[in-house]
């Protein structure tokens, strides 16, 4: 027999009671308001576990409104029937204490980090493949508008560069549209859906049409393989993941267009760059254009980097978004060495010469 507090489920008054556990049932006895001894029998099978602390445990019984009994946790423990032993997460935490919390924290951090770095990127890139091309174009056009809004477009150069591109078969399903914009950074980038932006300084540094063909082949490679869409998806999926974790869902919907600028900063992975190089080399070969143009393009970029390094300037924007590695230069060089179908390109040369005139440094 043990002291307990009994609530009858009808009034908010605790009755001092005697609790006696038996095999298969509990007996609770108390004096009611009229000092009459009441005896209550609880069948074990209908007893429900309520909240418990290290000091007190609550048990409930029967249909709603439940009767309840408050018992000393230590005393009640040995008499608890199997079905009301707690196996919930909270009790797991209580059992494992600080170690449990630390373990859970470590698991959570590990999980979050691995999802962020290893699981989301391939998943996002995979899902980028499923976006319908018409929608990709629509999205790309909107992003393109936003991106180029702050720039002056060199209309003349734009017309000529598109003429140039018409002469080359890029073997792509996308409608390639190129814009030349005035700027003082050496850069070029591709927007999903077929828009390509080339900055004037990069054109100024070129001296052969093969170099421009290589650049366009490379950027078209990014478009055809949906690289910027993939990178965009990757950035977005990470942003969404972080938003979900911090339960800030409002931000997600507005991210897409507001973050258009991140396209400039989308860092292509080395694999994507190599894939685009490969496309550029194939395009050059298919069009009988000298693949040496690709090597020369890389040389130009490398030289610019070194010059600007010497001047204490920042790395040219193109290279910060398109990492240039020695292995890429090497691949382009050995491809060019093996090429046998390179021909002179009088058409391209004529157009290129006209293009050069429109972007002369003042």
């Amino acid at each position, binding site marked *: 027999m043990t002291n307990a507090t009994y*609530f*009858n*489920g*009808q*009034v*908010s*008054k*605790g*009755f001092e009671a005697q609790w006696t556990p038996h095999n298969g049932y509990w007996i609770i006895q108390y*004096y*009611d*308001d*009229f*000092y009459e001894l009441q005896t209550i029998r609880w069948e074990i099978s209908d007893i429900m576990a*309520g*909240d418990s*602390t290290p000091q007190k445990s*609550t048990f*409930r019984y029967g249909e*709603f*409104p*439940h*009767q*309840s009994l*408050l018992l000393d946790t230590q005393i009640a423990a040995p008499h608890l029937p199997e079905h009301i032993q707690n196996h*919930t*997460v*909270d009790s*797991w*935490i209580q059992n494992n204490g600080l170690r*449990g*919390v630390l373990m*859970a*924290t470590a*698991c*959570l951090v590990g*999980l*979050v980090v691995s*999802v962020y770095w290893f699981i989301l990127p391939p998943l996002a890139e995979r899902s980028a493949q499923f976006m319908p091309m018409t929608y990709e174009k629509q999205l790309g056009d909107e992003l393109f508008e936003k991106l180029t809004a702050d720039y002056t477009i060199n209309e003349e150069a734009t017309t000529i560069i598109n003429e140039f591109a018409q002469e080359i078969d890029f073997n792509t399903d996308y409608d390639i549209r190129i814009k030349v914009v005035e700027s003082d950074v050496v850069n070029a980038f591709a927007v999903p859906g077929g828009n390509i932006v080339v900055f004037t300084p990069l054109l100024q540094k070129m001296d052969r049409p093969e170099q421009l063909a290589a650049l366009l082949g490379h950027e078209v490679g990014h478009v055809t393989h949906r690289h910027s869409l993939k990178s965009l998806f990757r950035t977005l999926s990470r942003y969404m993941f972080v938003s*979900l*974790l*911090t339960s800030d869902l409002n931000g997600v919907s507005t991210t897409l267009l507001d973050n258009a600028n991140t396209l400039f900063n989308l860092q292509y992975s080395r694999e994507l760059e190599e894939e685009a190089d490969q496309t550029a080399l194939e395009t050059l070969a298919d069009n009988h254009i000298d693949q040496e143009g690709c090597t020369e393009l890389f040389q130009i970029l490398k030289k610019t980097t070194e010059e600007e390094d010497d001047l204490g300037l920042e790395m040219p924007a193109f290279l910060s978004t398109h990492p240039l590695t020695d292995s890429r230069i090497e691949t382009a060089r050995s491809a060019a060495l093996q090429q046998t179908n390179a021909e002179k390109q009088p058409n391209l040369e004529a157009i290129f010469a006209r293009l050069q005139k429109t972007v002369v440094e003042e």
Partner: protein
Amino acid sequence: MSEFYTYTTTYTPEGNNPPNTQPKKLSFTGEGSKLFGIYIVNMLLTVVTLGFYYPWAKAANLRYLYQETALDNDHFTFHGTGKEMFRGFIKAILLIFGLYLVVGLISYFATKTGIVLLSLLSFLVLMGGFMYLIPLAIHGSMKYRLSRSSWRGIHFGYRGDRATLMKEFFIGTILAMLTLGLYNSWLITTLYRYVIGHIRFGNVAFSFEGKGADFFVINLKGVILSIITLGIYMFWYMKERAEFLVHNTKMQQDDRTIDLHIDAQVADYFALFIGNFFLVAFTLGLGTPWAIVRTMEFYTRYITIGEGLDTNSIRQTEADYRDATGEDLSDMMDLGIV
């Protein structure tokens, strides 16, 4: 909806437990570190299950907060379960998803066909959807949460009628729109009056007596002075709002009216707000459990339940209720119902 009126025979407290009607306070004994333990496991499982653990996480959280809150040394109990809330969670997802789907489809056809009327329609459907879902969420979450809350075996309950709340909400929102938000104070007061007025704790009834005009003055003064003082007045504003809510809430037990009082000073609101801000912002949210504990301690420390509530004679009156749709719906729309 069947209410439970079986236990209405008058109880005469002349036996071995005398009435206990002195003023009292709630106490809160929760600890940030323990709540953090629950939190971190919740987050882990929620992430692992792609969010589907959320209802269980919420149940674990509420169970802890309730069981650490006590009145006259007896603790509150939250009876809700993850399983019950999971059903509500799914329904809530479907409702919100369905609304967005319909709105999305209409606006898709609007851009496709270029019919201006269609884009207007999609806007109206979205507005209408929220005007329907918000009172639904308030009603459902009050109904579920309160019925799953008890103290000494006596359950809380919510007796409001969904259709009436919807009507009040609808009219109020239209008026608020027409007056460019000026009516908001009256809308909120009306909702408080309706919602609080239908809360029961056994046979103890709650009521709210605040006037829209008073609330309007508080809000107008609060906003204007907060702007002029670059936000410093905000803490006085917080105090006035809390006092408006608490001092106008009454309890009625048998023939006694019980007042509530909150006596926190401006400095206390300042300490609560600034402390919580740093706890949450500088820990990337990991300090949230401590902020919650501080908030609970704040309200239990400063709110007094006035003379007259006899904690020994509250009678069971409310029916059982298990539909948790509103509970999760209100979470998704971030309504922040207590």
